[in-house]
């Protein structure tokens, strides 16, 4: 076979600088238990959970065009599976996290087969119905407290780590590790053949289909991957909370409205978007959450304004203006004999 006369590469100066800054930040965050207090650690862990949830939603809605407003189904499922595995099956809490992901991925297969029958907007509401069904079923499980929920028994909490401090550190690192894992998984997926297919679907689904992409299969893979990630995040959230109830675990506000807000404000269809969006969301929350329902009202208004006037979000504006990327995802082609004429494709 003839060697190709071009090379595809991903990194450029911006992504190398961005990547280095990101790596430095990561080191500082890994060391956070040594410089932050208990309250900050909890806040940071919550931030990581939202980064992971919003990134997963962004993959689903931004790339695969599967606009779900029912991802709370998998957050709640993850939380409930964690409680069920540890309390009823005696699985050690930390081992149950990957297991939760796998079970949720298996559950998501028949769910996908059902909701994929609904297109576009109706798909969105269909996912919501599924989340409601999960919530109502969870409130029927009397061994896990039924409608009022339950707490993780002390014995299981102690089995995570001996002292409270050790446990909090451990959960913090797991939350950070999971967020990094979810991001890495999404980057790997986007750099694979699926990534090219997904970018094509994001830009124009009909054109992608006519170029021979198995659109439904790609969407299916994305849906199951997202369920896997979202449920593990749910498990870690409830490993930190230690108490679960159907209304909290399957809350549309907490796990979908906020997540969508984060993705929209940061920039849908870009991997950096949810990270920027989470930063902005938590900044707004720290400043205004005392306002209660007025704060939520404001969030809704901001999301509408962004959607109308800057549909690519804050990161979209910055990236378009300055040609930035933190994660090496853009494919660039260097021709063998004309390295200077490097082509660029997203």
């Amino acid at each position, binding site marked *: 076979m003839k060697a190709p006369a071009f090379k595809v590469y991903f990194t450029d100066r911006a992504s190398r600088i961005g990547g280095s800054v990101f790596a430095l930040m990561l080191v500082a965050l890994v060391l956070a238990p040594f410089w932050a207090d208990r309250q900050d650690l909890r806040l940071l862990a919550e931030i990581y959970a939202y980064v992971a949830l919003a990134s997963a939603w962004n993959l689903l809605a931004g790339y695969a065009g599967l606009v779900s407003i029912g991802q709370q189904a998998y957050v709640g499922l993850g939380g409930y599976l964690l409680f069920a595995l540890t309390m009823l099956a005696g699985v050690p809490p930390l081992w149950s996290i990957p297991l939760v992901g796998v079970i949720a991925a298996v559950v998501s297969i028949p769910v996908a087969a059902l909701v994929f029958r609904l297109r576009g907007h109706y798909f969105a509401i269909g996912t919501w119905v599924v989340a*409601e*069904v999960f919530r109502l079923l969870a409130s029927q499980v009397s061994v896990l407290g039924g409608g009022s929920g339950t707490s993780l028994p002390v014995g299981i909490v102690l089995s995570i780590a001996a002292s409270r401090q050790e446990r909090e550190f451990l959960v913090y690192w797991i939350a950070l590790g999971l967020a990094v894992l979810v991001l890495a998984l999404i980057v790997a997926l986007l750099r694979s053949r699926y990534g090219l297919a997904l970018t094509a679907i994001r830009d124009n689904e009909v054109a992608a289909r006519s170029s021979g992409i198995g659109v439904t299969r790609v969407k299916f893979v994305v849906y199951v991957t997202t369920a896997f990630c979202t449920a593990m995040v749910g498990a870690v959230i409830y490993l930190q909370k230690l108490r679960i109830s159907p209304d909290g675990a399957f809350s549309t506000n907490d796990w979908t409205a906020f997540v969508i807000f984060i993705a929209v404000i940061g920039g849908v269809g870009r991997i950096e978007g949810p990270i920027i969006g989470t930063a902005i969301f938590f900044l707004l929350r720290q400043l205004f959450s005392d306002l209660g*329902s*007025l704060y939520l009202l404001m969030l809704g*208004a901001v999301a509408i304004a962004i*959607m*109308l006037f800057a549909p690519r979000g804050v990161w979209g504006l910055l990236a378009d203006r300055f040609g930035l990327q933190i994660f090496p995802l853009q494919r660039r082609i260097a021709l063998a004999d004309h390295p200077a004429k490097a082509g660029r494709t997203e």
Partner: protein
Amino acid sequence: MTEWINVIIQGVLIGGLYAMFAAGLSLIFGIMRLVNIAHGDLIVLAAYIALVVSTTLGLNPIASLVIVVPLMAAIGYVLQRALLNRTLGDDLLPPLLVTFGLSVIIQNALLEIFTADSVRLQAGAIEVASIPIVPGISIGVLPLLQFVAAVAVIGGMQVLFYRTALGRAFRATSDDPAVAQLMGLDVRHVFGLGMALSLAVVAIAGVLLAIRTNFDPSIGPARLIFGFEAVIIGGLGSLWGTLAGGIVLGVAQGIGAQLDPGWQVLAGHLAFLIVLAVRPEGLFPKVRG
């Protein structure tokens, strides 16, 4: 036995209410391919407007429809022209997310103004009146009135759609907005009228809902889901289908509640999922998609 007959009758009658939730949703999807996530919250908004109108003017809630219906229609027209028309296009995301944002705004604004306490519209003696059919089985006047209203509304929409110039404009815009525009229709105006009509139906549904049950600002999303399920069960694009879908949903919920109070809503969802699995085009499909 009579117990079960009562359950079925109740289910059929409440199905009329669900059909009205569904008809407004189905209408705007048919005309402009828009699914309004805030639909349920607009139903609740209509109920609160009726509450304010009937208490300040001392009107019976049913009489307050004279004010609530035109007001909601006006809100719909303005909403469509000022906001929603800007979101329509090939991309699914903007209309979904804008109406989702709208849902959050309406819910929290109602919460801020009316608090989370549940309230109810008082319609007087009609609330408890009933017509005995045979010993042990009787039909409530109010549920019957709701069902008749639903049939009238859907029949009226059917006539409007297939017998009037406005209906022709709706159907033309639905088929191809670009060609409709070329034929001299102002598509933005037609979309505005479509949303106005949808919210007029929402107003009737909201008031009838509020006479029947307690309501608070948080119940909107569940009404959206009931309406949506009725649309899918009945079949996309068919107005009479939404009535059938609403009845199936109402009966399923009634049977679920009879088995175990905790199963009421779940049984409705399961009926929807079964239809989706077995007959995804719905019972009386008109358009595929």
